[in-house]
């Protein structure tokens, strides 16, 4: 042992056997994979999530049908025909007719259009108010935060339905009153979420750096804080849309949805529920499309959550 450990005299190793070792270390620092931006990276992971892609495809198909579907038949969604009431599916009426002889296929896609519109509009209101509210409360903190979040708490404490029903009753049922009613209370969840995110992000060094450079607070929120919460916000939006569509369907169920002759999936489900025992197919089609839309958004939102979550990065 002792013999092995003793240092070899320098002249025992010829100089030509020495090789510089530094290059190995330099190569370890080299970037081997092509640089991938945040969104490209997310897209890559999103594509691998089969359920999310399926959700997106379902939504695209339903969206296309909502635009084109009502024009595929010779009928109008309002056109009644008292001789052709409650027909089963046939060559003339692909999905049959309802109790007023209106073509269900036409009404179905028209209703899908209205439901999607309500969902997207309500989610947009949520997005604007919720992000602004949560962003300001979280960034400024202190008294501002306290007051703003207490307001949120109070809104959260009143049953969501009560406010929505009250507002719809005040404004009168209809497409816009539903959107306004749901948008005006739905942002509460978004505000809480954004505030939580902002509270984390504002402690980061780059925000400190921006502040030290004298960037005005609102600009910091807009340029630095909001973009970094975008993933969470995006996911929440994809999950808010089905919530609003569901909400509209529920309002239809209690008679406060869009009014005849306008169709929404919820109002179609409600009116067909009355005749469920006799004409189950009238309930089946709108329920299936409604469930497909909600499934599509939920799958999409779930996939996005995984794709944008940095912890899932491999």
């Amino acid at each position: 042992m002792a013999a092995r450990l003793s240092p070899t005299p320098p002249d025992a190793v010829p100089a030509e056997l020495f090789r510089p070792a530094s290059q190995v270390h330099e190569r370890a620092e080299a970037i081997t994979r092509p640089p991938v931006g945040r969104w490209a990276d997310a897209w890559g992971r999103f594509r691998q999530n089969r359920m999310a892609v399926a959700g997106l495809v379902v939504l695209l198909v339903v969206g296309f049908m909502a635009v084109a579907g009502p024009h595929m038949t010779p009928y109008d969604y309002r056109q009644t025909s008292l001789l052709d009431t409650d027909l089963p599916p046939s060559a003339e009426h692909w999905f049959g007719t309802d109790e007023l002889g209106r073509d269900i296929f036409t009404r179905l896609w028209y209703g899908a259009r209205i439901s999607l519109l309500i969902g997207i509009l309500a989610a947009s209101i949520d997005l604007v108010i919720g992000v602004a509210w949560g962003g300001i409360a979280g960034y400024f903190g202190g008294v501002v935060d306290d007051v703003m979040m207490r307001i949120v708490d109070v809104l959260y404490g009143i049953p969501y339905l009560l406010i929505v029903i009250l507002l719809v009753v005040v404004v009168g049922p209809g497409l816009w009153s539903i959107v306004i009613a749901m948008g005006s209370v739905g942002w509460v969840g978004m505000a809480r979420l954004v505030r939580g995110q902002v509270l984390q992000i504002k402690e980061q060094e780059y925000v400190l750096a921006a502040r030290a450079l004298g960037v005005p607070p609102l600009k910091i929120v807009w340029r630095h804080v909001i973009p970094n919460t975008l993933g969470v916000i995006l996911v929440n939006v994809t999950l808010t849309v089905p919530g609003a569509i569901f909400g509209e369907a529920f309002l239809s169920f209690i008679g406060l949805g869009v009014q005849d002759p306008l169709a929404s999936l919820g109002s179609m489900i409600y009116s067909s529920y009355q005749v469920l025992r006799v004409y189950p197919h009238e309930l089946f089609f709108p329920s299936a499309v409604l469930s497909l839309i909600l499934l599509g958004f939920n799958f999409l939102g779930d996939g996005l959550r995984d794709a944008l979550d940095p912890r899932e990065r491999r």
Partner: protein
Amino acid sequence: MLRYVARRLVYAVVTLWFIATLTFVLMHLVPGDPFSSEKLTPQIHQLMLKKYHMDRPLWQQYLTYLGNLARGDLGYSMRQMNRTVADMIREGFPVSAHLGLQALALGLVAGLTLGIVAALHHNGWPDYVAVFLALVFISVPNFVVGSVAQYVFGVRLGWLPVARWESPIHTILPTLTLAVSLLAGQTRLMRTSVLEVLGQDYIRTAHAKGLAPGEVLWRHTLRNAILPIVTVMGPLTAGIVTGTFVVETMFGIPGLGKYYVQSVYNRDYPLIMGTTVFYSVLLVGLNLLVDLAYTLVDPRIRLGKAAD
């Protein structure tokens, strides 16, 4: 601890007062009054308003209501004569709570199990099945679930009664309908939570020191993973035991859920206030209980400090 509870109780009263006030203002913003939908001559209409002291200025009505509320008096319904709001809640709540707790128990047990199994087989087929099921169950609205269940099991197969609330058998379909979405939510939450915990160092340590897998699961994984579930239990329970309008209407269940919609429709002011306050008290109370339960589940949490 006691100081914390005392402070929370003060907060709770303030929150309740806010909610009651806001509801009071909101409902008086709605045009019409409880008697405007009945065909009454103007004189009788005036007399009705006078009988319920609704001819007085709004701020007087508000103060009177708050005074009564403080004494626990919710008043009489304005549309169902000679019925107190308290009576209506006393009759409806046990039914709604029965249905709600049954669905909650089922949804919780099934959802947690599914979530744990999914997380333990992360990216394996049980995981995919559980995630898929959860998403489907979340996406299908309860009135669709309910009507399909009624049609298949009630009308077509004739196995179970379609509606009404008479015997334990009658509770099966509505319980399942309610439990479906609960199950889905719990599955997702539990799966995420368990996955999060499984990635922690202390789990690796527990395995490394040779603990049996079951021991690691019970003592280290589940005890930590259950916290988010405890958090959502407050609002979830408050919501479900106060009744669900859709399910109660579909299945003809004499619960509390219908009042939340009916009262607004009828401008039945005392009933609107009563049901809202009742729900809020439950919500605030259960949230307080949940916060206290944290200390039992997780000894690291000390409430007095967290609140400062």
